């Protein structure tokens, strides 16, 4: 493994850009850490931390200059690999034409374990679309709503990255431990001024990442969730959630794996030109399940059930894994703070006949 300082990180970003990438990373904007184009370290949210609770997200200044220590923000990387709105095709009398793709390859800077897992999940649902260059970051500071340790997706990053970093702030300064996970990664790393890391440094980082697993603010109950959700189709608890749920769809939109879309047909006033567009949809929308004559799922209870059952249960049937990676976004960004881990616990309690108490 290698080590480099802030200058090295800057070189890394510039190397990616020079290599033809559009680099996306965390930035501070509108009271949150969002994902947007970055051109260097100066764009990163140095010294900004985040405090999260159900339905609550607040930025605060940290005591240090850490760049990557902030819980999952309002956006996920999904918006770049599976855009909120995109043109599928356009058609004239002559035929159908696909919308042109952006030529530039994306590079993601600062992908945590949970989000790296999510990119994998999404890729398996949507099939291969162009794969971004991924600079992952191990997590040493989980937030109050994180539970990736219990979903097996963090805090250390799993496979699938091109480069993995561990951010270190110690008495030697602010530096990064780097590991290449692909040939591309090695090639880019070669452009960065770096030194080999010592065994102590590597061990220290590993210790911190491992310790982070014990500091997760949340935990997904260790159960066969597929079975639990299957058994809970007729649970009373759905009605309880429905009283609190706004059916606004925020959880599905912030979820890094929710992939549902719907389509729009667009014509100009002359009618000569028609386009078909796709945009993110949510199973909380009433029209989502519309069949001629009416929608299948109209009650809030059934729409919440669909979301949770799909995410944690039927995702296994459809794609052979769970749809949840433990990032905690749905808990933070639900305006009324509905907590997926607590709802699962309540369903488990109802199944085992205990009192439901959320």
């Amino acid at each position, binding site marked *: 493994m290698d080590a480099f300082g802030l200058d090295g990180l800057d070189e890394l970003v510039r190397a990616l850009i020079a290599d033809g990438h559009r680099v996306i990373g965390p930035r501070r*904007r*509108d*009271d*949150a850490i*969002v994902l947007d184009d970055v051109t260097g370290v100066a764009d990163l949210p140095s010294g900004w931390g985040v405090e999260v609770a159900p*339905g*609550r*997200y*607040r*930025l605060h200044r940290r005591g240090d200059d850490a760049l990557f220590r902030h819980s999952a*923000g*309002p*956006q996920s990387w999904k*918006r770049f690999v599976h855009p*909120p*709105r995109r043109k599928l095709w356009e058609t004239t009398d002559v035929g159908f034409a696909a919308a042109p793709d952006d030529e530039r390859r994306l590079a993601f800077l600062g992908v945590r374990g949970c989000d790296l897992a999510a990119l994998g999940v999404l890729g398996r649902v949507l099939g291969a679309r162009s794969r971004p260059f991924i600079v992952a970051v191990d997590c040493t500071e989980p937030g109050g709503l994180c539970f990736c340790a219990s979903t097996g997706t963090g805090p250390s990053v799993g496979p699938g990255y091109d480069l993995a970093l561990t951010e270190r702030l110690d008495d030697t300064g602010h530096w990064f431990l780097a590991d290449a996970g692909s040939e591309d990664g090695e090639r880019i790393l070669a452009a960065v001024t770096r030194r080999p890391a010592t065994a102590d440094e590597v061990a220290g980082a590993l210790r911190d990442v491992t310790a982070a697993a014990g500091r997760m603010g949340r935990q997904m109950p260790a159960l066969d969730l597929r079975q639990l959700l299957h058994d809970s189709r007729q649970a009373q608890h759905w009605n309880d959630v429905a*009283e*609190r*749920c*706004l*059916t*606004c*769809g*925020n959880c599905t*939109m*912030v979820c890094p794996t929710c992939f549902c879309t*719907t389509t*729009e*047909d*667009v*014509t*100009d*006033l*002359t*009618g000569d030109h*028609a386009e078909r567009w796709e*945009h*993110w*949809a*949510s199973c*909380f*929308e*009433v*029209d989502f399940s519309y069949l001629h004559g009416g929608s299948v799922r*109209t009650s*809030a209870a059934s729409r919440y059930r669909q979301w949770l059952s799909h995410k944690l249960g039927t995702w296994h049937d459809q794609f052979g894994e769970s749809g949840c990676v433990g990032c905690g976004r749905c808990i*933070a*960004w639900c*305006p*009324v703070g509905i907590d997926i881990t607590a709802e699962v616990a309540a369903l488990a309690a109802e199944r085992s006949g205990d009192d439901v108490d959320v």
Partner: protein
Amino acid sequence: MTPPTLAVWKFTSCDGCQLTLLDCEDELLTLAGAVRIARFTEASSAISPGPYDVSLVEGSITTPEEAERIREVRAQSRVLVVIGACATAGGIQALRNFADVEEFRSLVYASPQHIGTLATSTPISAHVAVDYELRGCPIDRRQLLEVLSAFLVGRKPDLPDASVCTECKRRGLTCVMVADGTPCLGPVTHAGCGALCPAYRRGCFGCFGPVQDPNIAALTAQLRACGLSEEAIDRAFRTFTHFRQETAT
């Protein structure tokens, strides 16, 4: 093929919604080729008689004369599209529905006995059947163009009954309620504006009206948590449109 005819009607309103049609600067002349604008007094002194293929109706019903006139409009219109919060929900002037109109009258006018108004301001759908509703105070220009171009090709216009939050998130905005504690009606408000207010770091104030089955009680609890008083919550749910407010506990 003769182009379909379009008529624009005004009831009690501010003209903002029909102005939206003139605000389609890039499309106006094309539109005038694709449809025949047969009646639009705000823009033309030429009026062709009905029936009309599409009528756009702005405004709410606040006088006995209007209650009569909307029936005639319906009878002359093949497709009737009501535009804006006034026409779909009664508009800001529907605040009178919760007050004493007599008092309102005497407050504003010197000779109140002459003002012939109804005690309520009601949406068009309370009087006649409507085919499509365009929400908003004012309506959204893209949605207006969508209804017109959809009509021209025989498509069902795309007017999704989803929350403003879905647009807010698609746009990549940061939730003002979660990140700033700013009260926002987005979760219970009908999409269509493209999450305009959150884009300006302001909570949605509900000008597109409620989604189907809004969970007002749950949002009320959240607004309280944001620090709004009961009176402020009441006012929030009763401004440009009116949300059915369940007593939240």
